[in-house]
């Protein structure tokens, strides 16, 4: 069987997710036994338009990104959103809280009009996405599992349970008990609760679960002393674009 051909592409992002792939130090060479990486700009000069699986990193932030992404979708059999920027617009979506003009003025002052920008979108708002690899950054082991599943011709696991599940399985002390707030109860897991395991809050970088009980989460945050503004911040770190969150913010 011919090795599947894999390509990586990046849009607006920090390229940390691609770095996580390179960070698979112990497994990288074995992965290369199973697949051909044909495009990976961050790490190689070779390029090709002939690939089976495309991993897309980054958010779409300007009109000129769209045809490029559409072209990739056309070429690829399987298209995977790699990391929070691509799956849920991630930290980039923070900019959507202001108009593009305001953003340009704040950062570039009078030079602002030299740039094109529009409200940030995750890539599934532009093309169809087959699978999601969530996280900011992605978990490199989850990437490996995804590659294995694809090689076996089966659907990769897409998480539907909360971060708390993995957090408790690791036997972490709840960070609420350490006096911090945490979005773990309503956030998509798959990260092995790495942030709470290191004593810090879950910031929902994998997005909020589709059937999350947002009103109750708000109550929990309040009960732990969070102000309205603080709650708003918690809900918008990585999920400013989340439909559920935006609905919550709509005045009743």
């Amino acid at each position, binding site marked *: 069987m011919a090795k599947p051909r894999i390509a990586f592409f990046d849009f*607006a992002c920090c*390229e940390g*997710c691609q*770095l996580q792939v390179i*960070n698979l130090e112990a497994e990288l060479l074995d992965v290369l036994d199973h697949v051909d990486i044909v495009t990976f700009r961050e790490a190689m000069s070779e390029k090709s338009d002939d690939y089976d699986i495309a991993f897309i990193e980054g958010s779409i932030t300007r009109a000129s990104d769209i045809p490029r992404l559409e072209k990739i979708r056309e070429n690829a059999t399987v298209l995977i959103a790699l990391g929070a920027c691509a799956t849920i617009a*991630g930290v980039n979506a923070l900019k959507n809280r202001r108009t593009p003009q305001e953003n340009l003025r704040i950062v570039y002052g009078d030079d602002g009009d030299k740039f094109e920008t529009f409200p940030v979108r995750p890539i599934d708002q532009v093309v169809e996405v087959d699978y999601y690899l969530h996280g900011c950054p992605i978990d490199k082991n989850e990437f490996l599992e995804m590659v294995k599943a694809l090689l076996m011709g089966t659907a990769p696991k897409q998480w539907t349970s909360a971060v708390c599940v993995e957090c408790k399985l690791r036997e972490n002390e709840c*960070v609420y008990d350490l006096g*911090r707030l945490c979005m773990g109860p309503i956030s998509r897991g798959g990260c092995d609760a790495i*942030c709470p395991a290191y004593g810090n809050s879950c910031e929902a970088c994998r997005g909020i679960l589709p059937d999350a009980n947002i009103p109750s989460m708000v109550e929990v945050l309040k009960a732990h002393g969070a102000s309205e503004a603080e709650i708003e911040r918690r809900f918008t770190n990585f999920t400013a674009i989340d439909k559920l969150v935006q609905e919550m913010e709509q005045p009743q």
Partner: protein
Amino acid sequence: MSDTIDLNIRIDHLTRVEGHGNIVVDMEAGELTQCKLEIVEAPRFFEAMLEGRLFTEAPHITCRICGICSVGHTTAALRAAETAIGFSPSRQTVQLRKAMLHAEFIQSHILHLYFLAAPDFLGVGSVIPLAETHKDVVKRALRLKKLANDACAVIGGRHVHPISLVVGGFTKLPTVEELQGLRDTIVAALPDVVETVALFKTLEIPHFLRKTEYISLKSDEEYALYEGDIYSSYGVMLPPRRYRHVTNEHVLDHSTAKRTRTAFGTFMVGALARVNNNFDQLSEGAKAVADELGFKTPCFNPFMNNVAQLIETRHCIDDLVAILDDLIATGIVDEIPDPQPKAGRGVGAVEVPRGILYHDYEIDAEGILTQVNCIIPTGQNLSNIEADMRELVHEVIDEPKDQIALKLEMLVRAYDPCISCSTHILDVEFV
């Protein structure tokens, strides 16, 4: 001879660098009409995102500016925020942060040397063919990289977007046993560093000299990475809060002082600048590496930035071991960070692998960020890269076009530019 030459070079989406950039060179009848490094990376508006957020969020948001320098951004953010609220972290916190930063230097330099730069010298397109032809070399690179990543995992949870580093200290502290384990693995890896030096000794670094100004941090205490004053090889020393004097001259500031400095031309930050400026404070091991690779200060060859990175890799490994020894000897005390907001302004100036990184925050009494400015090293280097490119084109103009293109690419890559970082690139507007 060159006055009859027409030359057109366009390298779109330069590879093996962080972020998207194009090289454009146009020569008509020997006259260089265009010679630039175009930045096509989508702007990301981090400063705008940060305004209105809480100061404690800054490290976790700004590290997302760049995955490769994410510890660097975290550190700059921590330092800016703590300076603004007038908080001094404990010695233990500082030591652990320095260890993280060292690990990032090792990881970033190794990545650049083996994965991004070496393929040029070995005449291949990437590390992937090397995995076939030079399996041992690739494995060694991966081992060294893993070492750095493991260090970050032990101390901060992970390298890309570290977790436990927060304003005030750490949300979780490593145990002495973990630090001891880490120390042992690092020491065991020293032969890999020696091999790396031996490998780079065999590679031929292009000979190209152009005098420029080197800017880095400088400290009386140590080889300045985590903190220090801003120092120029032309002898100027400035406190971090006056960083705009070095960063903003070209476009925004038209003061007399500025014009004087413009007379010096462009400047370089990064490994070469640091090694040039602070050579004496390197570890003995690092000095030996310099010796072995024939590095002499001052060095005006930008291609030698790769060698400077290798020297620093050794320094960071040596110093990391020293820090770990110190932490193991003193033991780890549980501290729960609890920084309180206070109105103020703070500049965090930190050396990251590619040069000085500045974060400048203004915080109100509630701890809300009201003004944010981040200046990244690659933004500072851009003009210098272009100045080098212009001179290099003239030197190599007689070579075949693909050779010229390759040399230009190698030059740009030698700077290890990190274009994703370029949130503020337009301070040096030239597109």
